[in-house]
């Protein structure tokens, strides 16, 4: 029957799309679980690191690290962490909107911006806008490794050491739950000191090997790296969660569309049959 041929092809093509979105949804759901585990796995390091930094604040090393000192801000460094792929709802758009708002504010205060990006979406967006990107890390995949982002961080830390930037921030999506991801701006340098309430027996200090400066330099670098890495892992979990939700709603929408089209198709088919019958009846009556 020739009736509703177009509608039928349309239904088939939407069904195919639905198959894809449903598959993506399931893939994202399983990946989300993995990325969430990874997020949990990185936590102990960050906690331990924060503890040591705190201990160091209580100890009294003769050397005060530059990352702990505030300077007047003329230029800030920003590391933006985005996903590598799209199809994850408004995740990246929301992040960039927050970033742009923050940038504008800095610009208004006469503060320059130095930019590094992690993830293809951020590179694409900001290079498209004509921003000057001093370093980027792309295509980190679902299991990012710390060594993938060392380069980007080093660029920023070097810039700080040379006095080119006076603050360093990282912008990423914070994973709140599966439905909610919060774009977050976090200040890395100067390191925000945690309140000093814990009691320690009088004055004490570590034995530093080889010496305080070298140990602290290394420790601080790793501290910054661990925060950025955690941001990256968290952003990854956000990406999968956002994709899962986006693909779920896409599948639902496809289902609804199919239902509607099916109804239209059935009506057309019915109408055609009715018409045929009435033609036959009319023909028989005429004979």
């Amino acid at each position, binding site marked *: 029957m020739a009736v509703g041929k177009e509608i039928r092809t349309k239904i088939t093509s939407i069904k195919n799309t639905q198959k894809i979105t449903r598959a993506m949804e399931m893939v994202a759901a399983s990946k989300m679980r993995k990325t969430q585990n990874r997020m949990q796995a990185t936590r102990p390091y960050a906690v331990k690191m924060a503890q040591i930094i705190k201990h160091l604040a209580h100890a009294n090393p003769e050397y005060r690290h530059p990352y702990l000192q505030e300077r007047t801000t003329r230029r800030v460094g920003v590391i933006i962490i985005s996903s590598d792929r799209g199809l994850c709802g408004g995740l990246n758009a929301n992040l960039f909107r927050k970033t742009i708002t923050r940038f504008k504010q800095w610009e208004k205060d006469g503060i320059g911006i130095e930019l590094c990006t992690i993830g293809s979406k951020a590179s694409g967006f900001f290079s498209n806008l004509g921003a000057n*990107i001093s370093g980027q890390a792309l295509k980190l995949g679902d299991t990012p490794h710390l060594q993938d982002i*060392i380069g980007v961080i080093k*660029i920023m830390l070097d810039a700080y050491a040379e006095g080119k930037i006076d603050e360093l921030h990282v912008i990423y999506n914070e994973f709140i739950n599966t439905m909610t991801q919060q774009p977050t701006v976090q200040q890395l340098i100067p390191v925000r000191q945690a309140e000093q309430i814990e009691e320690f027996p009088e004055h004490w200090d570590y034995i530093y090997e080889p010496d305080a400066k070298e140990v602290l330099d290394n420790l601080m670098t790793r501290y910054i790296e661990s925060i950025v890495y955690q941001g990256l892992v968290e952003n990854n979990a956000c990406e999968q969660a956002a994709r899962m939700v986006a693909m779920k709603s896409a599948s639902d929408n496809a289902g609804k569309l199919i239902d509607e089209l099916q109804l239209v198709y059935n009506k057309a088919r019915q109408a055609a049959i009715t018409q045929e019958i009435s033609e036959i009846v009319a023909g028989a009556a005429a004979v």
Partner: protein
Amino acid sequence: MTMTIHVDIVSAEQEIYSGQAEMVFAPALLGEVGIAPRHAPLITMLMPGEVRVKVDEEEDHAFFVSGGMLEVQPHVVTVLADTAIRAKDIDEAAALEAKAKAEEELADRSGQIDYARAQAQLAEAIMQLRTLDRLRKRGR
């Protein structure tokens, strides 16, 4: 019962080991160190090598670290292990690579962010999402 010390070995990517031990051996920068309970507070860098955790006479764990930091408090030893071999020149190479990646993609950059365009683009993306949302709600 012999005295024990709590040991945590963590890397940026995962927790490696956590538990009590009689003694911990680590490849510090200035030579191998052995940490017994109530060791004086110490903080040192580690070389690539083996961290050995002696739980008791029979049990013994060994972990390879490619460098990192070791912190000792009287009752806690923390090893912050690196996941990759770190050296000044390797880090430098990584930085250069990140820089090069940024440069090859940005031939026509002006260094000025076009905020108007940014907002237009973002507004468009957000509106698309809102529209989809509204359509969905209406469909229900």
